[in-house]
């Protein structure tokens, strides 16, 4: 199947082919090559230009259009998944044009569709057809793309058009100058991909070197310099002003590409620090041949004076949307008939052999927002400088550092370390590589460290029992109304402790307590939800409850933070108090426990584990501490599972 999800799905030759087709758009209107074809437009986010230009393009090609302009109010509101929508609509249409608010959602749609899918913008990820229009406009205005210097300006962080555009400009060897509004720089993954795939060096450049460097470097990353009097932009913060004025005179700028101030992503309050182009710009001698582009709609970053000037070409740019999309549709239909599939990206795809794999760190990624429609996969990239290994989410391209790796066969894990690269490659090849974001995930799946120090017992069976008795007493002392108590344990050890704690409290207050669980590290149905410990019991009601959250070991606090988010998504308790058996310090989030069995100072490379009878084939309760050592150069066969370094 031939889709267009990313501008990377098209080769340079194919882009040229599409442009040649766009040049002949008039002929195609007569040929009507799409006669009998139906295009469906599914827009989960509002759009005027993109949707209308697609629909116009399809009709001019002789095809017809079915449309759902507001997916949010349609079946999605009833809970239909991306996967189901894709399957259903595939049988109504010959091509799908999709816009979605989640990064990577169109990739997920394409995986379930039986017809070609075109990305009309997915979250902050990509918007490849806008990019095609931008490139086409530049080529029309300037003759060629190679060697052009394009300044991209404004919100470079949230603007999906910008991400697609810089990659495409890089491929056609244009120079890119980035000029980000404060705090809205290009995301790191975009910069890294520019470096990795296109060899763009993004070196800080001082203003006086600029004129020499610009001829040698493909991209410039300008550092702020002293503020300058040049009032080029109206309403602009000092940093941008400084950067802009630091561009040495004598450089040729072919185009300024402004992005829209994303009001829906920023709200008010930031208006003073967004650049805008006005009359001053037009009067600058060195910008006499610089065209001004904008994806539209604009807010107030382009003054009306620019509209009247020959250099303001954004309405032309919008008009090219139709011929370019006509060309793209014709191109995709032709490829579809020939049965060609989307160009494979040049890297190894990783999928965890375990039910719990690494998670994309992009909170807006489709894999987190609708896991059922996706299969978490990552591109394995080459190691970075300094030896860190990075994987990129297949859906949203967000780069995620490999933290812990394990072998699914031997059930051993280790910190990822550059010296483990050989093992990493071998396990990957054998399909045994398990990547984990946290040690806790590995432990929940029964993994043990590859190399660990001797175990020290922190709490024995009777000490654990005593700690729970003490905590139960404190809970009752602080409790306003025992009937409203709800004990919630974090799976799996926390949930076991919660059960014992509940029994202890019940003994004292002579009442049955409600008991629930939160699964954070698993991959099951109940993941990231509050569920009753007894599967036959009805759903838990959290409203106005006094919740006691129970976990075994408190460390960075991130687990508790996730648990709190989950609790507050499910209801609004009157209070949440935290009970832990062991607090080992090293907090990374502002979490404070209310009840602690024992405080234990630890080093960062140590693990504290609570092992309970019945879990992990343990025959007694105890809490242990051991160090995990770096498994340096681990290439020899791993020891058998029984031979754990930990002495029992």
């Amino acid at each position, binding site marked *: 199947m031939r889709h267009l999800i990313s501008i990377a799905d098209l080769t340079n030759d194919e882009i040229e082919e599409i442009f040649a087709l766009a040049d002949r758009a008039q002929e195609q209107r007569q040929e009507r090559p799409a006669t009998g074809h139906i295009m469906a437009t599914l827009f989960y986010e509002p759009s005027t230009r993109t949707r209308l230009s697609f629909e116009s393009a399809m009709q001019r090609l002789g095809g017809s259009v079915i449309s759902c302009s507001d997916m949010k109010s349609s079946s999605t509101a009833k809970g239909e998944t991306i996967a189901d929508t894709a399957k259903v609509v595939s049988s109504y249409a010959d091509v799908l044009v999709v816009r979605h*608010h989640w990064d990577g959602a169109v990739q997920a749609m394409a995986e379930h569709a039986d017809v070609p899918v075109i990305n009309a913008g997915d979250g902050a990820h990509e918007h490849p057809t806008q990019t095609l229009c931008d490139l086409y406009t530049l080529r029309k205005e300037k003759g060629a793309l190679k060697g052009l210097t394009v300044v991209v300006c404004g919100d470079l962080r949230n603007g999906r058009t910008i991400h697609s555009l810089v990659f495409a400009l890089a491929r056609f060897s244009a120079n890119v100058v980035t000029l980000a509004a404060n705090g809205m720089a290009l995301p790191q993954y975009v910069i890294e991909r520019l470096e990795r795939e296109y060899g763009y060096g993004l070196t800080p450049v001082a203003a006086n070197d600029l004129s020499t460097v610009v001829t040698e470097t493909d991209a410039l990353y300008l550092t702020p310099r002293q503020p300058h009097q040049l009032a080029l932009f109206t309403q602009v913060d000092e940093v941008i002003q400084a950067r802009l004025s630091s561009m040495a005179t004598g450089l040729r700028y072919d185009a300024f590409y402004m992005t829209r101030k994303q009001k829906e992503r920023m*709200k008010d309050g930031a208006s003073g620090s967004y650049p805008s182009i006005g009359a001053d710009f037009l009067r600058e001698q060195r910008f006499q041949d610089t065209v001004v582009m904008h994806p539209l709609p604009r807010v107030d970053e382009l003054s009306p004076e620019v509209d009247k000037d020959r250099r303001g070409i954004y309405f032309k740019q919008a008009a090219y949307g139709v011929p370019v999309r006509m060309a793209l549709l014709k191109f995709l239909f032709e490829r579809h008939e020939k049965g060609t599939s989307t160009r494979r990206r040049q890297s190894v795809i990783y999928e965890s052999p375990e039910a719990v794999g690494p998670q994309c760190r992009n909170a807006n990624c489709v894999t987190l927002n609708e896991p059922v429609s996706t299969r978490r996969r990552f591109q394995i990239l080459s190691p970075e400088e300094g030896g860190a290994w990075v994987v990129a989410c297949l859906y949203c391209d967000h780069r995620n550092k490999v933290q812990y790796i394990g072998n699914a066969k031997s059930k051993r894990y280790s910190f990822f370390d550059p010296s483990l690269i050989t093992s990493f490659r071998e396990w990957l090849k054998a399909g045994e590589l398990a990547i984990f974001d946290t040690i806790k995930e590995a432990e929940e799946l029964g993994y043990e460290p590859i190399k660990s120090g001797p175990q020290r017992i922190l709490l024995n069976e009777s000490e654990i029992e005593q700690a729970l008795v003490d905590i139960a007493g404190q809970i009752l002392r602080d409790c306003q109304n025992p009937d409203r108590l709800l004990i919630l344990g974090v799976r799996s050890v926390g949930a076991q402790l919660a059960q014992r704690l509940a029994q202890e409290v019940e003994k004292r207050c002579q009442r049955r307590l409600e008991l629930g669980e939160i699964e954070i590290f698993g991959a099951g149905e109940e993941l990231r939800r509050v569920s009753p410990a007894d599967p036959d019991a009805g759903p838990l009601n959290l409203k106005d409850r006094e919740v006691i959250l129970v976990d075994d070991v408190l460390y960075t606090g991130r687990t508790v933070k996730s648990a*709190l988010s989950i609790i507050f998504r499910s209801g609004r308790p009157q209070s*949440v108090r935290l009970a832990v058996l062991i607090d080992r310090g090293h907090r990374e989030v*502002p*979490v*404070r426990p209310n009840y602690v069995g024992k405080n234990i100072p630890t080093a960062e490379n140590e693990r504290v584990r609570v092992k309970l009878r019945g879990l992990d084939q343990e025959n007694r309760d105890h809490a242990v501490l051991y160090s995990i050592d770096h498994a340096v150069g681990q290439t020899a066969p791993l020891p058998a599972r029984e031979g754990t370094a930990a002495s029992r």
Partner: protein
Amino acid sequence: MAEEKKVLLERTELAKAITRMAHEIVEKCVAPSDLVLIGIRSRGVHLARRLGRKVSEICHTNLPVGVMDVTPYRDDRSRPENASAPGALEAPVAVDEKTVVLIHDVIFRGRTIRAAMDAVERLGQPKRILVAALVDRGARELPIRADIVGKNITAAENERVNVLLEELDGVDQVTLAGWKT
């Protein structure tokens, strides 16, 4: 019945508290280049700007200061209107791999900070999140702490802590107001 007002911090004491908090922020972070301050609307924003200037002076850097409105994330809202839109950050800052200090005027039940942590998560992956509050009045309902506190007080349920700032109120002052019979 009359309203009684007690001044907790006068202008100079408030200035001293901010200076001390700025030093604590510097102490608690590994490198100033990793530091990002985010002020929680509305008084937290002005506190964050003041702390930002102080920390910048101490470390000779230019510290990024963001502004956050946690209203859409608060649990006392019936339903987040559009949970997928990261609309809460007005002055955006990059938080990935940074130490983020959330600046709040008065920490009380902990619900605002919990909501703020959710909002931060939508921006990226900070290395660490700290909380700095000008006043900690205790009586938390959630297991959340303030790492850096200007003044700790104990106040009754029906008492109100008012933080007045020059930028908004024309005066720098913290007061405790309550009804006495």
